[in-house]
């Protein structure tokens, strides 16, 4: 018993002393990612991407000598857990801003709390519902899903592929895509011949793909992240489906090749230029930044960065810049974010404004294709 007490005391002391800082008081920003669950492959990469941005920022002197410190939470890819993680963070840590979360569902679940508390937040979520309508405190760094899908629609138009099958996850991101595809079909004159859904935890989508295939689509768009990207691609190829397959703007990740295996070959997706950085012309304004960042990421994490890393890093860079301009004040940080213009990021050129909380346009988006274990530019 005595020994138990001693251990508790020692542990308590360690915890207490680790809280003591020797430099200037750090400014805390919250960060909630899907570090486990189906969004994990993205969440972990995004956490890494933010770490790089923060370290770089602190090395340059932080905010007038005060470093920025990230408080990390895991939402387990689950909306309920996301809100719990956020509440815990808000009540125990003096955070001035928040980065994340990773997924549309978790983001949507957190929005009421964030708006009520007035926390400037840069999300990594893909779905447009996050920023439609524009919410006072909420920004997101990934391309608008509508812009990303428009990139696909332009390809379809150019190659005269007028019948499209659409397969999407039944989560917030998937449903967001399902609404967008109808709007774009009307705009670009293609027909959605079949629309099917699956659960993020499902292990087989053959039935859905068979149904889609029976309607004779000339192309199939699959709107999901995580393991289903691989399963749907494998299932489609196993059914002998040879029409062009498209994945969403979160698909250009190294893990895609591991998940989909040989079936990955030829699959196309809208992406940031980070996966094709070495093939960009030297005149590209983003090239140097991308190449430097990739080098840093690869040395530090021994992993190849995918498209989600670019979104994650941009959210961090923009937020840190706003904190630098405005100081540790939530309302001023928010205003500074809305004033960001012409920021050259890894994903594109960001022009934020009171009407636009994403800031990128369809022009920033590259269409890439999986080929022999890497991504190449399609056009």
């Amino acid at each position, binding site marked *: 018993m005595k020994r138990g007490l001693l251990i508790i005391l020692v542990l308590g002391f360690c915890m207490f002393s680790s809280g003591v800082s020797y430099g200037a008081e750090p400014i805390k920003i919250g960060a909630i990612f899907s570090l486990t669950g189906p969004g994990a492959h993205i969440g972990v990469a995004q956490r890494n991407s933010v770490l790089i941005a923060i370290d770089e920022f602190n090395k340059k002197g932080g905010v007038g000598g005060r470093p920025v410190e990230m408080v990390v939470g895991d939402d387990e890819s689950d909306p309920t857990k996301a809100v719990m993680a956020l509440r815990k963070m808000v009540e125990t840590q003096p955070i001035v801003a928040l980065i994340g979360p990773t997924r549309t569902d978790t983001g949507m679940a957190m929005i009421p709390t964030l708006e009520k508390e007035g926390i400037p937040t840069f999300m990594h979520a893909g779905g447009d519902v996050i920023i439609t309508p524009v919410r006072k405190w909420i920004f997101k760094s990934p391309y608008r899903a509508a812009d990303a899908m428009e990139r696909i629609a332009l390809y379809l138009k150019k190659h005269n592929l007028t019948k499209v099958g659409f397969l999407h996850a039944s989560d917030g991101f998937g449903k967001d895509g399902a609404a967008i595809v109808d709007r774009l079909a009307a705009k670009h004159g293609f027909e959605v011949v079949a629309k099917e859904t699956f*659960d993020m*935890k499902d292990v087989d989508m053959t039935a859905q793909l068979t*149904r889609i295939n029976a309607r004779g689509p000339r192309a199939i768009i699959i709107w999901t992240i995580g393991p289903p990207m691989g399963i749907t691609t494998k299932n489609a190829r196993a059914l002998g489906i040879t029409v062009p397959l498209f994945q969403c703007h979160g698909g250009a990740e190294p893990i895609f090749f591991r998940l989909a295996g040989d079936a990955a070959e030829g699959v196309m997706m809208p992406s940031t230029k980070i996966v094709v950085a070495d093939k960009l012309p030297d005149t590209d304004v983003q090239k140097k930044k991308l190449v430097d960042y990739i080098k840093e990421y690869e040395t530090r994490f021994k992993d190849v960065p995918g498209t989600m890393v670019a979104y994650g890093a941009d959210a961090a860079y923009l937020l840190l810049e706003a904190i630098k301009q405005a100081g540790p004040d939530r309302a001023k940080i928010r205003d500074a974010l809305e004033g960001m213009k012409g920021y050259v990021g890894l994903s594109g050129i960001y022009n934020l404004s009171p009407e636009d909380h994403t800031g990128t346009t369809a022009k920033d988006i590259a269409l890439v294709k999986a080929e022999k274990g890497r991504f190449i530019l399609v056009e």
Partner: protein
Amino acid sequence: MGFYEQILQFVLTGLTIGAIYALVALGFNIIHNATGIVNFVQCEFVTLGGMMMYTYYSLLGIPLILSFFLSMTTIILLGALIERGPIRVARSKAIIVLVFITIGLSSTIRGTALLAWGPDNVPLPSFSGENVIRILGAAILPQHLWIFGITIGVVIFLQYFFHRTLIGKAMRATAVNRKAASLMGISVNRMVLLSFAMSGGIGAVGGMIIAPITTTSYDTGIMLALKGFSAAILGGYGNNAGAIAGGLILGVLESLGAGLISSKFKNAFAFLILLLVLFFKPTGLLGYGESERV
């Protein structure tokens, strides 16, 4: 693809996934029959089967077939260890206590797996290539044939084991009446140990044969085990023929439901059928009640 080819495709796909449910259901049954408990660690047996095979094959570079058996052996030992450890040591043999022990173990193992392998899904190669095979217009992969073949193999083995071997018969006797069995000189403890080992092995096989199609991660077992459990209930909990029938029926219904009606109700459809069966035949399709559980 014409209508009949589509139906065939749905049925074949459903049978494949149903075979996995059936294996998981068998795992649940074997332990239930020996101890009367629902073993929640069954999820982890499935998960770990895939993850151990990944470890042996991809990380340690051991040949595929050897990895398969090594992984199975590992999980068999784990199953035995769980019985020898927490389950046997527990002073209270009340069903509810034992069930809660398995819930605790399940969370512990899942957490450890997350720490050991990280959160990402990892791939396993197909056992024999990925060339599509056409059967009357429907397309399947060689791996699907492996799934059918291995499941049938496991079922034949179990049938032989429970009806032709002395140990198997002893296990059945234990299931029928523990006290009478122990009076006949059957070591009940040993039978329980064996049931955990066998469940572990069968769960692991399920996890390994599906992994090349779906990839595997630290929590893949949860959904499969949930469906497997439903399959066991559907067929009549504790009845092995019921488990197989339940698994296949659930798999095919899911696939047909998603294909013919709407993929929105894929999961709901299977559970609706389960509810209907339970309403009208609470013992499950092939259940006879408590006295004949094997």
